[in-house]
């Protein structure tokens, strides 16, 4: 069994974000990028857990992004992936979830895969659309928000778990398949220092995005973004909390009710 994990590099959650002058995107100037999307880390952990538990042949990592996204792939290699491929986009190239999915599909065609794993969504745009689109372009079934999976090789079936509000669902379906992973069976591992060093020497292939143009052009939607962002705003700053002073619980409740009715107008 070969697993392909798709990872995305995202801005560090602690970094201060600004809107670009175009008003349509994040200003990436001076933004610190984390090594990897947190949800992808959980997904990579699930892939590595399966490799160790079921003796899979390999876990390979794939990313579409600018040159700096190599760091996300190196981090994935440091966790334990065997090889990596970066579809390198030139500075300023615009992507949307569907175009990204087409690029991933074109690259994945040349990488052995029985299971293709993506994170539940990326921390930056939170679109969560790449997984199902990728399944579509690869002509594979896709399963979303899976929490743990067990392949049954003989029947080519996957046994999967999915948490529901207050419950859990166990279901099965055939593979090869694309899965979006909500959270794996284990917390993501911390890479060991020896593995960090090894990761620098593991094979990492870079494919210029142009090389995929022919393959992507024949897919529905073609070699360009399907959707375009028209405006982008940051959430409004949170206003400060209001403290109520009181002597008795009764007084607190009366004052709270008054504020909720007259100022917040939620009652």
């Amino acid at each position, binding site marked *: 069994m070969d697993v392909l994990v798709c990872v995305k590099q995202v801005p560090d959650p602690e970094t201060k974000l600004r809107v670009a002058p175009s008003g349509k995107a994040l200003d990436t100037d001076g933004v610190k990028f984390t*090594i990897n999307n947190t949800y992808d880390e959980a997904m990579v952990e699930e892939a590595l857990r399966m490799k160790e538990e079921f003796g899979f042949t390999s876990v390979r990592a794939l990313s579409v992004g600018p040159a700096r996204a190599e760091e996300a792939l190196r981090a994935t290699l440091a966790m334990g992936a065997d090889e990596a491929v970066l579809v390198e986009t030139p500075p300023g190239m615009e992507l949307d979830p569907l175009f990204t999915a087409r690029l991933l599909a074109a690259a994945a065609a040349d990488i052995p895969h029985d299971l293709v794993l993506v994170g539940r969504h990326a921390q930056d745009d939170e679109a969560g659309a790449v997984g199902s689109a990728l399944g579509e372009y690869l002509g594979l079934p896709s399963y979303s928000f899976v929490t743990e999976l067990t392949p049954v090789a003989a029947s080519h079936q996957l046994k999967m778990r999915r948490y529901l509000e207050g419950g859990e669902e166990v279901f099965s379906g055939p593979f090869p398949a694309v899965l979006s992973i909500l959270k794996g069976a284990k917390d993501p591992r911390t890479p*060991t220092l020896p593995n960090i060093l090894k990761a620098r020497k593991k094979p990492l292939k870079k494919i210029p995005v142009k090389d995929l143009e022919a393959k992507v052009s024949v897919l529905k939607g073609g070699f360009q973004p399907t959707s375009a962002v028209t405006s982008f705003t940051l959430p409004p700053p949170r206003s400060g909390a209001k403290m109520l002073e009181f002597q008795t619980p009764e007084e607190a409740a009366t004052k709270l009710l008054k504020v909720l009715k007259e100022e917040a107008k939620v009652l």
Partner: protein
Amino acid sequence: MDFELSPVEKDLREAVKGFARRELAAVAEKMDREEYFPSEVFRQAGSLGFLGASLPEENGGSGLGYLAQAVVLEELARVSPAFALTVGAHSNLCADNLARNGTPEQRKRYVAPLASGEKIGALGLTEPESGSDALSLRTKAEKRGNHYVLNGSKLFITNGPVADILLVYAKTDPARGSRGISAFIVEKEYAGFSVSRKLDKMGMRGSPTGELSLENVEVPAENLVGKENEGAKVVMSGLNVERAVLSAIPVGITEECLSLSLDYARQRRQFGAPIGSFQLIQEKLANMYAQALSSRLLLYHALDSVTRDKRRNRDASTALTYVSEASTRVALDAIQIFGGNGYMRDYPVERLMRDAKLLEIGAGTSEIRRLVVARELLGSLE
């Protein structure tokens, strides 16, 4: 001049940071309240390779430079300076010293289990009657056949109460003073070795500190580190490396205090505005940043300096003197910015302040480090 860490050092920083914020943060407070040593977290740090960053690859380390070790200590110190101190004493004072001065057999036998965290290391120099005047130590080592017999006591030894392997300095020729010192590897199982006291401290709690007693301890002759009577060289070069590398701990404390203070200054409101909008608070923040930045530059400079020349005293001593005093000042300012909350145990800044003070005392006091710097700058007088 390149102020960037290498890609490996950056990845290492991220890995240690994640580990510290997850595993170490969960025990940091308990360590402080109960002088609790988290042996499980220590072993985990070992299996992740964080204890052996700068140790030779053939002894189970990763063969990186002192900067890598400093990166580890800084990230650990941001969460628990006490844990960082324990790792510093283990990885640097003990293991790195053995790796530099030990024979291939000694390295194989002792450095490898230290690198993996299977065994805990310590260094015993200070004694009840010899602190700043370290080379006046009184512990004696007498050669008898294939053994040296050690007698004496050691005080304030980091990791002493939990250590398996100790690098101990003793006098093989007391008449020759500082020219009669030798270094030995002592295993905790050796008959006559005991921990006479576990000490109760102001800060760095959870990094166990002890008084050790050596009573007719028979140490095999092959456990002599370096040449007989040439221990002073081992002590002095070790101190320079130790001062440079341990400077990473105050740097971590300072960074953490600054970052906590910035968050608090944004959130806490008085007079209808965030306290960060008051110029007296802004002045403190700007000064904290200046100290954080100069501390970091001094740390990197000192690491580079001892990597080139371990006998050069001034850079390592200057770095540790400055960064430790800065971290105490910055931690006190952080408490002030936090107001009443800063004085409470519910917030980490008062712990960071108590921890910070230690680095003005351990690894030679600030006074002694200044003497060392001035003497080297002046050269011989008359």
